[in-house]
């Protein structure tokens, strides 16, 4: 739903950093718990990139697994949802990975 606005931001940030250079590849990191749907970003990317220095660029998305850390015993575990229960019974988990929404790099020619 919000991926269009997010993708517009991505294109604006990369365009600004690229200046006059033509961008041929953009790499993003999107966490699996970030509430961003990578396919929706891919869908929007070509529309947003049109008539910018990103037009025709390849979009690569690395999806990052969700990782939680128990606030009681410190154990780390994979999270498929923002909530979970540690083996020790504690539900107070800190999400330490999986909420990324980052532009990692761009390739310019």
């Amino acid at each position, binding site marked *: *739903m919000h*991926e269009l*606005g997010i993708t517009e931001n991505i294109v604006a940030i990369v365009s600004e950093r690229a200046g006059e250079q033509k961008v041929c590849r953009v790499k993003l990191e999107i966490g699996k718990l970030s*509430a961003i749907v990578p396919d929706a970003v891919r869908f929007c990317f*070509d529309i947003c990139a049109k008539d910018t220095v990103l037009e025709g660029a390849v*979009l690569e998305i690395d999806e990052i697994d969700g990782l939680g850390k128990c606030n009681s015993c410190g154990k780390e575990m994979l999270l498929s949802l923002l909530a979970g229960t540690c083996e020790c019974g504690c539900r107070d988990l800190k999400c330490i990975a999986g909420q990324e929404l980052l*532009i990692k790099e761009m390739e310019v020619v």
Partner: protein
Amino acid sequence: MCATCGCSDDAQPKVVNLQTGQSVSVDNKPMPADYSHDHGHLHDHDHGHSHDDHDPGHSHDHDHGHPYDHGHSHDHERKASKTISLEEQVLAKNDKLAERNRGWFDGANILALNLVASPGAGKTALLERTIADLKKEFNISVIEGDQATLNDAERIQKTGAKVVQINTGAGCHLDAEMLATGLKQLDPPRDSIVFIENVGNLVCPALFDLGEKCKVAILSITEGEDKPVKYPHMFRAAEVMILNKIDLLPHLSFDLEACKKYALSVNPKLKIIELSATKGDGLELWYAWVRQLVRAKV
């Protein structure tokens, strides 16, 4: 393309000041001269038309010939290309603007609360009642967010509170820039409360910091007890969950305890307040929480 329904739409956000009747665009997003905003079509997504009303320099016809298959073949020739590390947070710009709003609220000693919920959960009803009950105690003003119409702002205006309506057009949430534009129009006094009623949506508003003190999620018991686990981001981002329409409990199969358990599973620190905005049950608990935040500010 519209961010919400996927249809093609050039609608830009605009801010309407109910006091002056003035309508302005959100900064850096000029409104097109022809603000036609026609949502009357059948969502056929054919993108075949030209967007030349806002971009006369080229035809911009959006007719992407390939089916979005991005095979990532990487067979492009690497002629003097170079990779540049960016490491930029996509939402950094919004977050910076939100911090600016937050600083502005702090400087003016204003408590700002961001009300988030599905459409129809009772956000506007809760605000009407809260303003009526607390207006002798606090100066309250409101920023309303909806995709279209002034309906909610007109309801708030009847309470006597100052109100500004932000119509997000294609957008499904308020962002920090829209709020900054809305605040300039609202011009709330020092030592007051600003309620921000976000667009009815349990997904996107969770991601966008506006600079508020905290988010208040409203869940009406007609919606089903599993909403907190279905939309965990929102209930995790909120400090308080209001369970509204509690007067309807005898008529529904809503499992109150299960709902609270779900909510606490996604956010163990969540404060839960049960109330009925229309009948008045539980409102004192909500007002006590608001008063406590106002006192904590000073």
